[in-house]
């Protein structure tokens, strides 16, 4: 049974739909990374789960210790009774309380000895032993974050929500902290949802990823799978999986007239398009079960490693920008024909060969797998 499931959850604030029909389930112990461009509703979703914003439609189901509770528009549960912890982007440490008092804030109803035991465990676990009597402003950013984590963990929440937990951390420390926090959550078997706009954080911190845009969840899954099989161009675009090459489907007739090699899926010929035209020449469909795609704005996802330089052949691209990187020279390319509907402007690739700015070159593209989307 999932620990939390959101069914058709919608939130409207001041007549603006912030979340629409969100469906999501999360098993106990899983860490879900919620990504999406700013303003897509990630933080609103967290606040709705925590109980700070009431949903207009749909339900939230919480299953904790075998107790099943349903929250919907008619039947709300106040935040303090949801058994959900949260770590805020600014940590929200109480400035007038010491570290120890901050951590014990949520367990004030327990006996003194129980509080003390829990406090000591957490101080040790989060390496805060020496800081118990300090005030928040006397701590570094990383220490503040650890206090925020300890405070959220003290009441043993069923679910932990983290709002951009690493955004205030020095880039050099960030990775270490993520690994540290992930292993802590795994040790304590805590289910967590965290919000970020940095996809790399999801890869090092999360078990699952959910990509959001404009108040909807576009795709959920294991990070690697989502990267290999994004289900729409927005997901691929947000995750920066590659650049876009505009293409058009060639009709059967056109294919034969131009004498192109037709793909070998003879049984699909009637229903699928097996070859496309682009500014870089024909693109062959190598999929075993090609998707039916219609629309006027088809694009092909092209990663840098799909592009290679040809020593001969017709020139088909111009070098627009050169950068020196650890992987060699990084070139940004545009098509020679710029007014064409198939013109591209953002393809890029790495090469050890030095090309000059504005040089016309010849490239081939061999995308595998073939990821084609409709951008309309």
């Amino acid at each position, binding site marked *: 049974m999932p620990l939390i499931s959101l069914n058709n959850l919608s939130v409207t604030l001041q007549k603006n739909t912030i979340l629409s029909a969100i469906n999501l389930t999360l098993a106990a112990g899983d860490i879900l990374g919620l990504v999406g461009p700013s303003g897509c509703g990630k933080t609103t979703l967290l*606040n709705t789960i*925590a*109980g*700070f*914003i009431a949903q207009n439609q749909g339900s939230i189901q919480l299953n904790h210790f075998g107790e099943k509770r349903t929250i919907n528009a008619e039947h709300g549960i*106040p*935040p*303090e009774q*949801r058994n*959900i*912890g*949260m770590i*805020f*982007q*600014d940590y*929200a440490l*109480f*400035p*007038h309380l010491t570290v120890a008092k901050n951590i014990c*804030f*949520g367990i*004030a*109803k327990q006996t003194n000895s129980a509080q003390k035991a829990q406090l000591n465990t957490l101080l040790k676990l989060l390496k805060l032993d020496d800081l118990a009597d300090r*005030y*928040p*402003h006397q701590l570094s*950013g990383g220490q503040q974050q650890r206090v925020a984590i300890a*405070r*959220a963990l*003290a*009441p043993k*929440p069923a679910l932990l929500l983290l709002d951009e937990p690493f955004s205030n951390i020095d880039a050099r420390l960030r990775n270490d902290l993520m690994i540290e926090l992930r292993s802590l959550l795994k040790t304590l078997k805590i289910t967590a949802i965290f919000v970020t706009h940095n996809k790399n954080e999801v890869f090092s911190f999360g078990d699952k990823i959910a990509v959001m845009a404009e108040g909807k969840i576009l795709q959920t899954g294991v990070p690697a799978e989502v990267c290999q099989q994004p289900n729409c161009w927005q997901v691929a675009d947000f995750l920066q999986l590659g650049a876009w090459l505009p293409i058009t489907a060639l009709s059967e007739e056109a294919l034969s007239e131009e004498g192109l090699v037709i793909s070998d899926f003879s049984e699909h010929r009637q229903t699928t398009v097996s070859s496309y035209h682009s500014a870089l020449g024909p693109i062959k469909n190598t999929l075993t079960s090609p998707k039916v795609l219609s629309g006027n704005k088809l694009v092909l996802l092209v990663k840098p490693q799909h592009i290679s330089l040809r020593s001969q052949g017709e020139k088909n691209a111009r070098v627009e920008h050169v950068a020196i990187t650890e992987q060699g020279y990084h070139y940004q390319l545009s098509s020679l024909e710029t007014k064409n509907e198939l013109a591209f402007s953002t393809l890029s690739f790495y090469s050890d060969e030095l090309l000059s700015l504005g040089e016309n070159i010849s490239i081939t593209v061999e995308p595998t797998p073939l990821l084609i989307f409709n951008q309309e």
Partner: protein
Amino acid sequence: MLISALTSTSDLFLHLWQSVLPHYLLNTVLLAVYVVSLTLVFGVISAGLIVHTNIMGKKILRWLLILPLAMPAYIVAYLYTDLFDYAGPVQRALRSMFNWQSPQDYWFFDIRSLFGAACVISLVLFPYVYLLTRTAFEQQNQNLLRAGRLLGLSPKQNFIKLILPLARPALGISASLVLMETLADFATVQYFAVNTLTTAIYDTWLGYGDLPSANALASVLMLFIFAVVFVEQKARAAQSQQKSMINNQQQVIILSAGQQFSASCCCWFLAIAGFLLPFSLLLVMVFEYSTSAQFFSLLDSALNSLELALYVATIAVLIALVLVLFQRLSRDISKNLPIQISSFGYAIPGTVLAMAMLATFGPVDHSINDIAIYLQLPEPGLILSGTIFALAIALVTRFAAIANGAVSSGMKQIPANLDLAPASLGVNLKTSLAKVHLPLLKSSILGAWLLVFVETMKELPAVLLLRPFNFETLSTQVYQLISDEMLEQGALGAILIVLFGLFPIIWLNSSNAKTDKTTHTSSIANAFSSKKRPQRN
């Protein structure tokens, strides 16, 4: 003033010390304690209800509760004495209703007492606490309150355990503001015949004509003020406040219908008792007693008030500009010092300030006259201490904090890079000040000018002590009429003073939307708090 006090040879001070001074001191302390406690109760409760509950009529109460600030306490004192005294309509009605014959038959709250004075002063001063606490509540980091909820607190527990403790700095600042205003109050206690240090200073100087003893008393009062400022700064330094953003998604405590009603009544009571009732009583007086003769006699003093306010506001703003620009552009380590010193004047009660001016300019005047005699020129008289000059200087000193606060908060909104940008474009400092800073400061300068102007119109104690012979301002004339139990004659003047007091409140309320240019009170508070505070991160 201190020198004059220490070198005083008068035995009147000794006599005062042996007889009435301890009593005056006790009165002063008691009055301060009562007023601070009452204003804290009034202010915190009303601010809490307005910000954190779904109280009925929130929108209108929100600004109604500020209005009592425009009411001079001595006018309220007079009106309420009229209303609640033995001979007043309330007690008369009660007597006839219950058939009581004499004061022995029943108990009624005696307004002409120390506690009565404290109540009246609290009714007009509580908006300081209300305003600063409300702003603090509204600017509290919502995430802190959310964290409290997730850690198991109900909204009401949140208020006690988080919201109030987090607002401690605002409570401290507003309490010290109230304390200073209370210590500076003269007319209310004088009217109620409650003897405090301020009334003692006034009586010693004008009654007994003993300047050195008055100076000594003023020095005692000054020590009080120093103590308050010192404690306040200490308390503040021990705390650090988190910079927080304003979040409109405030979670409010939902009150039941009954609770809403009583909460609403509470706030309405404060607004009515502090402003609406006294203001309507004044209006009634105007309609019943006004004559054209009164109007013309008021016109003279009104013109005097205007003239004085014009000078004071203009000088104070010019000085503020110079100080703020110096603070901004100087690379000196002590660049904050001049503005800090000049802002300290607000803490000094008008009475004390007046004594200081007399102590300073009196001897200077005498020397000028001596020189004139020596040069066989006609004696110029008391050209400094006996004219509007000393008065203007005293008021500029007293209200510099307001002008400094308003102008410097405007300056803080100008990004530091705008100081550098003109230079990078090849424009010199003078041009950049004229073309960049001054235009950007325009509204702050206007605001500062207006605030000082209005405060000058309202100021009473310093004017009473320092005004040249036969120089009446609106406030002195109204006060005179009150002392003679004839406010009816001056109701129009009182209304004018209140209306002038309303100006800045309306102006501030409309500019309140801009978050940083908060309020009159906080601009004063800023002036006091310019000492360094530990900053987060």
